């Protein structure tokens, strides 16, 4: 049996390797490497554009008003896929809440008779709790910075949200969130749904033209600043709906991942004490 699996793995990887050998040669990208440099500063320009990537490099900054080409691809050109990815996270959070529901409702958490100190080995240390609280604020501010500047500099909703959720993990291991677990989960769940509803609401807001259309870009007063082509200092009020989508995803990822952390933390606490 072990021999068969080894042979199968070798065959599959040989298969993939043969495929890689037939790719176009390394060092010669499919598109045009100098696509970014020879370009008029305004308007859509498709000269020399032969594949999708070239179009993004050449027109992404001007068309969406976002300095971060990755953000313009993720939230504008392929915004529908991002909606799907955000939905995947939402589904994972819902599944974990559903599957661990019996753990969370079990007696050892809810019953008032059992002292809480026996459920969680609580460390009563002022240094740890106060230090964790200070770090919490700093990590949260860094995460918010990443989310808000998603369309200007590297970062964005997913990254900033994950950074913020790591702050929740810090609070958990320094035993801040041990009481009122059901209420915490309800609040987190509410804000997670709210973030996603903002995302899809922005999509529906543009449905006069098309779903997820960037209706705020190109010269409106809200987030519609037309930015100059090439290197520039970066403008927060540009890129249309991109900052809003980034913010929505940031809210969703922060509260969703926090919900997963809180749920798994309490479920593992129950299991250890059974």
């Amino acid at each position: 049996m072990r021999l068969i699996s080894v042979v199968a793995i070798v065959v599959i990887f040989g298969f993939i390797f043969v495929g890689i050998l037939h790719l176009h040669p390394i060092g010669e990208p499919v598109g045009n490497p100098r696509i970014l440099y020879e370009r008029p500063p305004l308007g859509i320009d498709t000269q020399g554009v032969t594949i999708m990537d070239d179009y993004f490099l050449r027109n992404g900054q001007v068309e969406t008003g976002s300095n971060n080409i990755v953000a313009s691809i993720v939230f504008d050109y392929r915004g529908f896929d991002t909606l799907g990815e955000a939905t995947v996270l939402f589904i994972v959070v819902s599944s974990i809440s559903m599957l661990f529901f019996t753990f969370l409702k079990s007696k050892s958490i809810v019953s008032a008779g059992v002292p809480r100190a026996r459920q969680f080995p609580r460390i009563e240390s002022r240094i740890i709790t106060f230090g964790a609280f200070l770090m919490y604020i700093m990590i949260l501010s860094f995460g918010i910075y990443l989310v808000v500047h998603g369309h200007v500099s590297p970062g964005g909703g997913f990254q900033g949200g994950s950074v913020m959720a790591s702050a929740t993990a810090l609070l958990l291991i320094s035993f801040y969130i041990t009481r009122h677990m059901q209420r915490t989960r309800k609040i987190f769940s509410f804000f997670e749904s709210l973030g996603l509803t903002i995302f899809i609401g922005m999509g529906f807001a543009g449905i006069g033209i098309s779903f997820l259309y960037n209706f705020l870009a190109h010269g409106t007063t809200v987030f519609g600043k037309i930015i100059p082509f090439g290197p520039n200092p970066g403008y927060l009020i540009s890129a249309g709906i991109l900052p809003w989508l980034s913010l929505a995803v940031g809210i969703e990822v922060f509260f969703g991942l926090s919900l997963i952390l809180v749920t798994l933390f309490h479920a593992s606490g129950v299991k250890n004490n059974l």
Partner: protein
Amino acid sequence: MIKHVPVLLVAIPLVVAFMLPIIGMVNRTIRTITAGVAIVIIMVLSYLLIQDVMICKKIFYYMVGSPDPTALFEHGLTFPIRIALKIDQFSLLFIIMATTLSFLFYLFSSQYIEENERKNYFTVLYVCMVAGMMGMLIANDLFTFFVFLEILSISSSALVSFRTERKHPPYAGYKYMFVSSIATSFFLLGIAFLYAQYGSFNIDYLKKVMDGTVLDKIAIVMLILPLAMKCGVVPMHMWIPDTYSEAPAPISSMVKLGSLICLYGLFRIAFTFGSHVYVSYELGILFILFGVLSMFVGVTQALIQKDVKRLMAFHAVSQVGYMLLGVGVGLSVIKSGDASFAIYGKIAMIGGLFHVINNALYKGLLFLTSGIMVRHYKTRDLNVMHGLAHYDKFTALVFMIAALAISGIPPLNGFVSKLIIYESVFHYNPLLTLIAIFVSVLTLASFMKVFYSAFLGMPPERKPVEQPILVKFSMVILSIIIVAIGLFPQGIIKLLIEPAVNALATF
């Protein structure tokens, strides 16, 4: 407004799913009704498209986020830069099937699953599953297809392990999750090959630029095998029995429906890319091989089962074989150059696609009745069950209809599609028809076993509880559709199946 219908089919279930946790905190009845209304809306939208797509032969394109969503290419380019959605005759056939059946299964589950706080999450995941199916059906973009395939797999694997208080469902859900993540990773690798070579995800554009190198063939194999794994064809069917038998009854039906949607992806990719890379004959032979293996192994495994839901799960494997056989014969002769496609290949494809619809109907109904049986007897063991028909004549009748339909007994819908497959495949190779008829006989035998043990015999010790109204209603509607299609198959073949086959064959 009708030009936005492709994206609304996905966006409406998604926005409702996102708001359901908030609504569920407020009132649970409103939550149940809202989710139902969302599914009804997309069902009505899909029926509205029949006039345009099926009769007037119009194809709906939608570029998400584009200034002009119906224009295929922006700024005079020759390739799309945004995500393309497309509804043609072939996808509309599956959209109608998926929306209608998920609405009926939702009616069943709204009263079958007991009401508590976990049902909030159940409803959310159910609606997400519907959204995942819709996204796969309308996507004309490989990566969007992959994303919604993930949505479908993750939500269904969570729902499979819904009954966490028992021992086995979490294992079944974990197994399903594991298998589908392996499948989707290989699918992603196939997409990566195509993207690295051609720089696009768009299916129509890839079809245009593919030139039949070794890389294309490897990428096509990597796209097709994972989808075959998700359909449960025989060398990759090990997850089917556990998943279908441990899930709650409406979820078994929904997972079955999801595997048929993966079959849609399989056919779509095989027909779109296969004929352009000159591998359509080989792919057709592969489909026929898969089909015959699935039919035979599935039914022989089903004969020896004592567990009613495992038995039905193995029949699901064997039924997929019929569809692969019918469509595979069509695929293998489509580029042969002689008249064989016009003589029997197209008819075989009509039989295969018709069997997809019929199978979704009666297999869903069978899983629903198995839920009622299991709830009454508190076990899935056929040796323990006896005599339910003494008290519950309704379930007995409904089960009888579904079992006769799956065995291919004349006045019901299974007979029609099986007969079309037998007759057309006979021109290709008589041996295949013989195997198919033999499998059908064995199917009848094993379902007679189920009917005899579960419904006939001594009356049971306690009376069964009366089923709620929506549970009965959904089963009645499914039975009526089965009988109606069986009595008047011409109408649905003319209206839905034949345009779909034409669209598939001319890709």
